[in-house]
């Protein structure tokens, strides 16, 4: 029987409860992050980077922590350190021969060897999700996702699927394990090894390129992941913002959307700088799996999406595609107006970072500089989980970014605001804005895309017992549930995250908070 939520306003007040202490106390730069997918594929762990050598995870279903292998980050850990969960990062590559509809054999090696059946239990008894793309020459031209129920050991295991594919993959078809990676960034003087990724599926680390990040990372940092797996609250990961769309025309640099339904109602450039991914093309199978950024598009019906780079293989005129977030990780850091970005999602290869005015080799967009320098307490809340208003005053492309530095200034980054850069509006007006609520050291935020129509982001105000939430649909800051327990000294770094209860269509998000300068850990049901 499906779970029913029976909370009544005023009678049933939100209430924090104490959870298992973290193993190690937090300090300046310590940061926690979570997977924001809102279906069963969501990773059950929260990831807490305590310092350069201490990285721990919390199992939201079992209420206990575990210390992972040291990431051994370079730099001097402290203010400015940060982390972010990227769900569409992980092992990927091509399949070998010998596949069946219920098992596939990897050709491209995993970054580390896995034990037998390791991929079939991510920590809560459910296996990781794997995406199979039938894009080898002569293959199916289909994309299908399954959960892993077993695997052989090693770096090129045979992987067993929870249900049969509708096609038999052939050698050269692509696999993508949607387990996610956690980007970990230390602080201090920039150096090789200051930036790494924890590969969840294989429990291993990968060193990422730090080139083009600031020479000294400090003050405070805020990451936002615009991952393709992150979709509106009414959608499931993999469906993008509209579900599958059937093209009505294609060219080497464009694809045309639907005349009715789906994307037929888009406004001009509403999804500029978003991603198009080809998910099925049985006519031209090798076109499947391609990802391209939209540089501009016309209004619907039959919107024409012009791409920032041409297709490698032009899809057929009636290919099936999705419109998704662009897989960039955006970073505001080190008391600067410069915005930094790295395309970690979409299984993108490593390369140099992009920053305002310069596109790096990794391919992330070079976002425009923000209107004012960020300061301690800078925090951001995206909008991709929303149910939009009819007038589209709210957009999936909006990111609300508090400037920090003991101000209440809120800047708005519209990802779709200009080709390749997005556009900022500085110091926007918002409800609940008051000189008494400013944001500085200890402020951090997280986004609940799953419930309340995806309109709330939660803010730990200055690392105190005060909390607030920001409504990205209506641009209103409102108080959230007071934490009745004492915090330690406020320190910079992300100290809040979310977990999600799912039972069929019933979802209940939990807000988690790790103590500033301490190890006490709490959560609170977001019951309204």
């Amino acid at each position, binding site marked *: 029987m499906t*779970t*029913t*939520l*029976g*909370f*009544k306003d005023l009678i*049933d*007040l939100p*209430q*924090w*409860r*104490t*959870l298992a*202490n973290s193993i190690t106390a937090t300090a300046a730069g310590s940061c926690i992050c979570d997977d924001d997918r809102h279906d069963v594929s969501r990773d059950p762990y929260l990831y807490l980077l305590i310092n350069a050598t201490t990285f721990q995870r919390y199992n939201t279903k079992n209420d206990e922590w575990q210390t992972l292998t040291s990431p051994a980050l370079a730099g001097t850990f402290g203010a400015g350190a940060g982390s972010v969960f990227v769900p569409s990062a992980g092992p990927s590559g091509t399949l070998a021969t010998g596949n069946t509809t219920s098992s596939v054999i990897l050709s491209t090696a995993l970054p580390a060897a896995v034990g037998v059946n390791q991929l079939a239990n991510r920590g809560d008894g459910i296996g990781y999700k794997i995406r199979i793309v039938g894009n080898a020459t002569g293959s199916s031209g289909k994309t299908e996702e399954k959960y892993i129920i077993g695997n052989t050991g090693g770096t090129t295991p045979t992987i067993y699927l929870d249900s049969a594919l509708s096609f038999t993959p052939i050698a050269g078809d692509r696999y993508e394990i949607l387990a996610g990676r956690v980007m970990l960034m230390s602080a201090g003087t920039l150096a090789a090894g200051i930036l790494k990724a924890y590969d969840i599926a294989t429990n291993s680390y990968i060193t990422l390129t730090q080139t083009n990040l600031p020479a000294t990372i400090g003050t405070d940092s805020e990451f936002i992941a615009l991952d393709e797996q992150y979709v509106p609250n009414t959608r499931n990961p993999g469906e993008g913002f509209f579900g599958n769309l059937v093209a009505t025309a294609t060219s080497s640099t464009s694809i045309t959307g639907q005349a009715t339904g789906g994307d037929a109602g888009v406004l001009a450039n509403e999804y500029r700088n978003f991603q198009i991914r080809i998910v099925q093309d049985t006519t031209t199978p090798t076109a499947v799996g391609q990802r391209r950024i939209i540089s501009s598009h016309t209004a619907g019906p039959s919107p024409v999406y012009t791409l920032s780079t041409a297709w490698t293989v032009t899809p057929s005129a009636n290919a099936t595609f999705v419109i998704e977030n662009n897989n960039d990780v955006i970073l505001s850091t080190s008391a600067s107006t410069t915005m930094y970005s790295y395309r970690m999602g979409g299984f993108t290869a490593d390369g140099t970072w992009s920053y305002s005015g310069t596109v790096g080799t990794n391919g992330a967009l070079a976002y425009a500089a923000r209107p004012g320098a960020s300061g301690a307490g800078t925090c951001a809340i995206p909008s991709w989980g929303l149910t939009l208003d009819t007038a589209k005053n709210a957009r999936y492309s909006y990111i609300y970014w508090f400037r920090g530095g003991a101000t209440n200034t809120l800047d708005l980054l519209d990802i779709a605001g200009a080709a390749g850069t997005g556009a900022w509006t500085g110091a926007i007006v918002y409800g609940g804005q008051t000189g008494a609520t400013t944001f500085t050291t200890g402020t951090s935020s997280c986004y609940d895309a799953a419930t309340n129509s995806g309109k709330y982001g939660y803010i730990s105000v200055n690392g105190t017992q005060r909390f607030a939430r920001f409504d990205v649909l209506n641009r209103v800051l409102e108080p959230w549930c007071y934490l009745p*327990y*004492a915090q330690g000294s406020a320190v910079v770094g992300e100290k809040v995250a979310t977990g999600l209860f799912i039972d069929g269509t019933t979802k*209940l998000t939990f807000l988690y908070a790790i103590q500033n300068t301490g190890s*006490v850990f709490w959560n609170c*049901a977001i*019951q309204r």
Partner: protein
Amino acid sequence: MSDVKYCVPVTLKRTVSIDSLSVTDLYAALKSILNALLRPMWVDPTTSRVKADVTATQSGTWNVGTVTTTTTLTNLGTANVTGMYIDRTAWGQNIRPRIT
């Protein structure tokens, strides 16, 4: 584990006017006497007062000191007596019943 004896003075005397004595008064007086007699009481020869032994079992010390952390009520005793469990009980009573 240790046994601690407490000396609890018990007062049996009650002044009642014979003119206003009711059945209720008699019942209450009788109940008081019988209850007292059922307890392991003794007469302190130095004060001539009836006293009772109370045996209690505990671990740790009895002094409840300053609450210094949010997870452990210092000096209250075993590790299981913590704010966490009190907290969870409250959550279970207030929030959990709404999730069915």
